[in-house]
């Protein structure tokens, strides 16, 4: 069973996602980077499920997909809210709270 290849792919996806979250300042791109991390998780879960011959990982992956959809729905609503009030989705301009 080729487990390593799947784990490497997911590790690469995870790293790209983390880099995106840390480096990007565009609201929608941030959401996409987070999706990358979640998909890395899904690849991990399904690969491990096939490797260990248990079904828990596949069930978990389905839950992750469903919950991530709800999460992104809320996230897009907030980005839209930001766009309505400040005509931009660039997060560097949103910096009123500090101290």
């Amino acid at each position, binding site marked *: 069973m080729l487990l390593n290849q799947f784990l490497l792919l997911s590790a690469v996806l995870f790293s790209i996602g983390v880099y995106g979250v840390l480096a990007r300042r565009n609201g929608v791109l941030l959401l996409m980077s987070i999706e990358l991390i979640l998909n890395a998780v899904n690849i991990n879960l399904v690969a*491990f499920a096939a490797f260990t011959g248990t079904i*828990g990982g596949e069930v978990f992956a389905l*839950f992750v997909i469903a919950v991530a959809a709800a999460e992104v729905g809320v996230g897009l609503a907030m980005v839209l809210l930001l766009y309505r009030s*400040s005509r931009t989705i660039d997060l560097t301009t949103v910096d009123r709270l500090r*101290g």
Partner: protein
Amino acid sequence: MGLDLLTLAFERPAIDWHAFAPELVLLAAGCLITLVDIVFLEKARPYTAALAGIGLLATAVPLLTLAVDGTERVMFDGAYVVDEFSLVMKALFLLAGYVVVLLSTNYVAEGDYWENEYYGLLLASLMGMVMMASARDLVSIFVALELLSIPAYLLVAWRKRDLHSTEAGLKYYLMGVFASAVMLYGMSLLYGVAGSTMLADIGTSLAGMETSPAVVTMGIVFVVAGFAFKVSAAPFHTWAPDVYEGAPTPVTAFLSVASKASGFVALLVFVFVGFYARSEVWEPLFWILAALSMTVGNLVALRQTNVVRLMAYSGIAQTGFMIAPLAVAGHGVVNGDQALSAVVTYLVIYAAMNLGAFTVVIALARRSGSAELTSFNGAFQFAPGLTVAMSVFLFSLAGIPPLGGWFAKFEVFRVLATAGEPWGYALAIVGAVNSVVALYYYASLARRMWADDPVDGDLGPVPVTPSIMSALTLCGIVTLAFGVAPQLVARFTDVSLLAFGG
């Protein structure tokens, strides 16, 4: 292959309805609020808060019957457990939720924003927390975490015409989702090692290893980091001050108490049921989190000018104290149970005193419309009752006897000292120094309220609504009672997770 399992006949799992009763009542209350809004529209508005409060109190009834019954109920092969620990935490969440409803009553109505949805989301978030207290499986913990987080993101951004609130919501959302994604990655690694999503199985599998392989270490670090965000422990605390300031203040109180406690519930379950055998990985991790949170929280709190931000940093420092017992919890059942009890004790007492402090902040901010520290100057001259109450809560947070906070701190120091480890003593010293620093800013806020003159010279009285009054009384009585008679709280918090986890 896993897919073969699908061809087996489906067997309906046995469901213990009594054990599920609190969740079901809470769900019914949430649905009722939404339904009432759809049917009666504007006419229902004045009754929503009352409905939410009654719903929470009704949820407490099955909780009491479960506590009286006292048997440990295990469902779904151990994925969902109702034991003493989960009952105590569920009661804490419900009471904290009730106080938040009391705080929100006038605040939300006066703000001219949607009310029914506010309480509906609040109950949904509480539902997630109540589930979290029972979840003992990666999938149910994840679902509970998202169920409590997603409504909280929306509640933070509630004042949607206010850019501060939007910004706070967006920051909270992005940091929260990122943290839970990283935590999920850790969970997927743990699943891969154990071949099961059940925490007890992960515990057995980790206990069977000689040393920690890199994949286990990574899994533990990612999971702890994800929940460290939820409890706002340094260095994952940066969201807290901004979000606390931008969110509606009752929501801030909710986040700082209930949401933090739910993060701790998950951490405790993970540590004591799942990770316990791998203490060489998580003990240093918690040591660093505890020492950093205490130090960073207290030092930055010293130079705050806004009382909500001050409370945010004080909350970060308090988190450090709550994490501290976990740094020495890995030496056997007695020691582990002591640490667990210390954390639960601290959570219960912290909930009472922090909600109390936020109640006073909300009551006073209604008058001045701001939460600047200077608007608290001379509060004794126009609001003597609130000033006395605030002093009680502040000194309790600082840990002065005979107020509740001293017992919480005492328990933490007792665990650190009895572990008999140099690291434990070192952390106790860090904690002691930090207690002194914390006393300085708590006391200086109290001095400001008692001794200074009001900035605007306005001595008109502060209107205190009945709901604020009840919240204040509830928190005050609990804070005082647990300080004077600590055996009261010790009776409830003498819980154990290790017996179950083996």
